[in-house]
């Protein structure tokens, strides 16, 4: 039977853990609001550039861009967006599972995979699992700068330009609501062509200043960058939400554990008293 001192010590240690987890829950709750605001601030740009891209897709351009070109795929690159810090429940691991599953699927079709990783957790995971890592961007903070992602995106796009890869996927968590985050694996390249609207006026094209090729190159690169950036800030909002929920659960569990241990403590204390009493009574009757 455990002794009272041991149980008391355990209760004290769980209580201090509970304090930490509840503090972390509150920190995550306040950060969640900020990250959600950042996510919403980034939306107009991604919506507008999407509009422009869809207009371009409708225009009968003189220059077909390589991002729309379907090649027979031999190798694909996964851009994996993860958090920098842990303690956010299954957020990262659920995403990694999907990435690995999709990579295995491609492998069956004899398509190789390589990875461009955003976030410390992704680089740690793929280091232990293995896999070809072509670029890493880490420690972007709660308010990532779009410029921090340029390098990583450029590595992937350059590989596509040099035909080292034929497909690119963007893997990140989608923010559904505070309770739910949805891991997504989305195809970036080749870009899915817009559905042709029958009612749209026939045959028109932009005036390009200066050259169509130059402009479309720049614009589509920006488009991919904006998708990656949007994924990163959305993933941040997911991280904070998941962290809040995880820490809330941890705090609740600690409370349950404390209750259980207090019951045990009382039992042990009572048993000790009973034993002492019976010893005294036994001793008295022996005299």
């Amino acid at each position: 039977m455990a002794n009272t001192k041991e149980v008391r010590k355990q209760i004290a240690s769980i209580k201090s853990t509970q304090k930490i987890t509840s503090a972390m829950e509150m920190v995550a709750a306040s950060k969640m609001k900020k990250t959600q605001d950042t996510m919403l601030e980034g939306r107009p740009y991604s919506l507008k550039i999407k509009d422009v891209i869809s207009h371009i897709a409708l225009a009968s351009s003189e220059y077909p861009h390589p991002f729309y070109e379907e090649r027979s795929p031999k190798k694909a690159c996964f851009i994996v967006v993860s958090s920098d810090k842990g303690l956010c429940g299954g957020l990262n691991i659920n995403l990694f599972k999907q990435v690995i599953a999709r990579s295995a699927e491609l492998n069956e079709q004899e398509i190789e995979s390589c990875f461009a990783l955003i976030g410390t957790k992704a680089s740690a995971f793929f280091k232990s699992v293995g896999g070809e890592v072509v670029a890493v961007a880490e420690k972007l903070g709660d308010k990532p700068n779009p410029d921090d992602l340029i390098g990583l995106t450029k590595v992937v796009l350059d590989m596509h330009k040099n035909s080292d890869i034929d497909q690119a996927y963007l893997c990140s968590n989608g923010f559904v609501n505070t309770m739910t985050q949805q891991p997504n694996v989305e195809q970036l390249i080749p870009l899915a062509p817009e559905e042709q609207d029958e009612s749209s006026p026939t045959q028109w094209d932009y005036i390009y200043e200066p050259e169509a090729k130059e402009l479309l190159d720049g614009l589509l690169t920006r488009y991919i960058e904006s998708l990656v950036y949007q994924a990163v800030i959305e993933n941040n909002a997911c991280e904070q939400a998941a962290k809040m929920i995880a820490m809330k659960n941890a705090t609740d569990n600690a409370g349950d554990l404390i209750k259980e241990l207090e019951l045990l403590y009382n039992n042990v204390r009572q048993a000790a008293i009973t034993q002492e009493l019976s010893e005294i009574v036994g001793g008295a009757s022996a005299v």
Partner: protein
Amino acid sequence: MSTIKINIVSSSEEIYSGEATMVYATGTLGELGIAPGHTPLLTGLAAGPVRVQNGSEEEAFFCSGGFLEVQPDLVTVLSDTAERADSLDESEAIKAKEIAEQELANKDATLDYAKASAQLAEAVARLKTIQKLRKKQ
């Protein structure tokens, strides 16, 4: 007076959205004036002001570069947050690659944080099971 819809956005925020009778911008090939009903146009923007005129009112925004799209009834300005140069992009790309290589080189480091934390989690789980089994006895 007819107007044209104008949206100015940068990747981190929405800068302006509204109607205009005339929009002036600095394209890579020179100053542009866009009136409602302009033919579709796609151009790069050089660093410079974007002026939005609505009747007698005028507002100006600085834009450090980006893209301008014109549809007959809509102008979209996609502004970059920072100055972009190919050389800068290149150095960023090299940085991202270097980090990846460093990570790989560190594979045999004596203290592998990820591995250690995984082992710790496993140990804690094992301890918990033992405690549960003990309780049942």
